[in-house]
């Protein structure tokens, strides 16, 4: 029962704070653009509104893809430690989380391409290519941390940081690389090519109406929550529940601020970029770890 309560806790945190922080992010973007911006609860309204509409479906694979996308991400979320608040202690293996994550992504890609719209296929092809770009430096940096601490449990690394200090100070280059990769994972500018609205009609989401849109917005929120949580846990020392949320918000706003002022990379430019600068920095990080510095 305690496990069920913890799982519910994680999910509700992701729901309430994920959507709230997205709303705050919109507000921040607006202020950067000298606008007033929507209220902080705007994203709740958006999601709930889409759930009340009467949408269209293109067949069972579309429905199944949407459910699989949301279900996969919810499953991933339950394994992510929120600072020292962990639903399944000991089971928060980094690789399990990273690979469980792809269930949701595959579900989304499959459902969206299942609509039969080529814009969706192009968007998914771009998203996968971008993934090939950012995952490699990201995984190299994270595995150098795992190698350094001789564990692939995220919460163990959180505990070690509470004694040794935050990893962002011990591994500044690694943190920088991970942050650049995080920007790609979040799909924020300059790595926004997969969902370029003006270019490929919002890519994978082109045929999404009503509740399908709403469920995928929820899924997107949860995905962002997983990605940023891992970054906060691994580099900013996790901390207790409230510290964690504060750090989360800081990272999120930082990402939002960068995305608000940058234009968009073309997809091959993004991959080229990831495989040169961040990958090189990642190897400097690896060298420092292996050399014991």
């Amino acid at each position, binding site marked *: 029962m305690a496990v069920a309560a913890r799982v519910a806790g994680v999910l509700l945190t992701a729901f309430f704070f994920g959507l709230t922080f997205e709303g705050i992010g*919109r507000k921040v973007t*607006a202020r950067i*653009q*000298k*606008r*007033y*911006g*929507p*209220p902080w609860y*705007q994203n709740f*309204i*958006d999601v*709930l*509104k889409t759930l*009340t*509409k*009467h*949408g*269209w479906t293109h067949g069972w694979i579309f429905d199944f893809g949407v459910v699989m996308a949301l279900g996969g991400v919810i499953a991933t979320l339950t394994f992510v430690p929120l600072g020292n608040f962990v639903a399944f202690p000991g089971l928060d293996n980094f690789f399990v989380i990273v690979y469980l994550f792809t269930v949701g992504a595959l579900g989304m890609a499959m459902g969206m391409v299942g609509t039969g719209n080529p814009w969706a296929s192009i968007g998914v092809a771009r998203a996968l290519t971008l993934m090939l770009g950012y995952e490699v430096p990201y995984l190299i940096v994270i595995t150098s941390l795992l190698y350094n601490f001789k564990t692939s449990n995220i919460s163990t690394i959180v505990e070690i940081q509470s004694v040794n200090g935050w990893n962002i100070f011990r591994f500044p280059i690694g943190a920088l690389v991970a942050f650049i990769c995080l920007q790609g994972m979040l799909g924020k500018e300059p790595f926004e090519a997969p969902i370029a*609205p*003006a270019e490929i*009609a*919002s890519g994978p*989401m*082109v*045929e*999404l*109406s*009503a509740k399908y*849109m709403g469920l995928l917005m929820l899924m997107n929120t949860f995905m962002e929550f997983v990605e940023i949580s891992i970054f906060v846990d691994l580099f900013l020392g996790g901390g207790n529940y409230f510290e964690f949320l504060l750090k989360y918000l800081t990272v999120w706003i930082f990402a939002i601020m960068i995305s608000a002022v940058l234009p968009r990379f073309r997809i091959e430019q993004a991959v080229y970029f990831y495989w040169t600068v961040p990958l090189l920095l990642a190897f400097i990080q690896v060298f420092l770890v292996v050399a014991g510095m």
Partner: protein
Amino acid sequence: MSNRGNVKIDERTVWEKIADQLRSRSMWMLHYCTGCGAVELPPSMTSRFDLERFGIGPMATPRQADIFLITGYLSVKTLRRVIYTYEKMPDPKYVIGFGSCTINGGIYYDSYATINRLDYYIPVDLYIAGCMPRPEAIFEAFTKLMEMIRKGEANGWKRYKENYEWYKQNQLRSLGEVIIHDEFHE
């Protein structure tokens, strides 16, 4: 289409009333840039006027949109696309006609190719008068539409369903038949 029987068009259940509250606060718009009205939208969305504070934002495709902005005069050719796009939007959907062109054809009223009255073809919830309406007028319209949605008065999408045959008839009469072999011989 489905006959709603003796249920009145503006009757709503409790859930629909709640849903309408949400719908009025989050309106995603599809601006079909048929005419000069489109140039008034960027200033409405950007720093000076900032539409987003009402939860109104642009969307890329009709599938995601709630309000459909017809921003100016319509020719026979664009009307086809407007109807095609309107039917792709999910219910409930609202249409705003911009400027006098959508009401009576505006200054192009006597052209052979201009559609003079939009609401013969799709149900319009709200018109904005003027040639062209300033962003202030657009804001006026949006706040009015929000109010109408909350009160359950923006029922264009229900009217379209109810009087589908009538709308189809008008559409067919104006558009005529195009015999098409493939996408290069329209």
